[in-house]
């Protein structure tokens, strides 16, 4: 089973149009999504001219929770400690990780990096997910 970065655009398409990339709906690939992007898309929809109803939004959430084709990665204390700080070879904190916490980038980008990057034994934080997320961050 492959994994792919489920970008904010993917989240928006799913929330608004209930559409997901073919490789994900086929079951061959799982989409990996940051909780910040999911919550933002749901909240953003509330401010639209013709927002989805709360029932429709809850249906979307239920689909995400039950279908197992998109994994929403939360941000808990453990991930926060693991990813917010740079550490040396002895696991001693040496500073704030500049890639995940910089004032001139949007907070959602910080949450995306902090919630998606996990420790090495994760099976779904793959090279592909990391490359696709980095590529997304380089887009204008």
């Amino acid at each position: 089973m492959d994994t792919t970065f489920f970008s904010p655009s993917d989240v928006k398409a799913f929330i608004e149009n209930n559409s997901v990339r073919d490789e994900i709906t086929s079951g061959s690939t799982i989409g990996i999504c940051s909780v910040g992007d999911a919550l933002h898309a749901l909240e953003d929809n509330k401010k639209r001219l013709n927002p989805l109803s709360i029932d429709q939004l809850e249906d979307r959430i239920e689909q995400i929770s039950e279908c197992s084709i998109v994994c929403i990665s939360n941000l808990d204390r453990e991930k926060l400690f693991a990813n917010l700080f740079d550490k040396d070879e002895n696991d001693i904190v040496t500073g704030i990780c500049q890639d995940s916490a910089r004032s001139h980038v949007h907070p959602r980008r910080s949450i995306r990096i902090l919630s998606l990057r996990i420790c090495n034994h994760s099976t779904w934080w793959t090279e592909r997910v990391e490359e696709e997320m980095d590529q997304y961050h380089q887009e204008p």
Partner: protein
Amino acid sequence: MPDLVLDTNILSELLSQYFVGNRRGSFFKVDVNGSINQEKARVINNIILWHESDDIDAEYPGLIIASSFGFVEIGRKFEEISHGDYSIEQFAAFIEQPPQWFFIATVELNLFHYLKNIPPYVEVSGRQKPVEWADAIHVATGMSRDSNWLLAATDERIKAIPFIADKII
């Protein structure tokens, strides 16, 4: 007594006081300062005192809670927010092992079940202002608690949300 959820401003003030080292005997206490007014200080200190004292017969006062997102916001502007009151290492140590009276709440999809009830706009000084999810997260964190809860907030838009008026200190 209810849990007390802190927004990012109050969290940063608490951390500053915690590391500056205000101790009465062996217990940490916050002083009225900056964004922490008398009421906030009273509630915070009541929670800390119960957890740090041996008086287990007193009514359980709840926990002091902040969303993990609050710590992200501090991390993003660390120098500006910490004012040199504490080091990055101390900040990390607090996250790694918070005091027994403090809980770092997870940002998770389930929070939408509470965010959905927060209006997208509120009226502040006669003008409609958007409630951003980054601020609403603290409200949703409180609402997600099984126990009764209060919110120590400074943002005018959060304080303008009608149905939580009795939760704000």
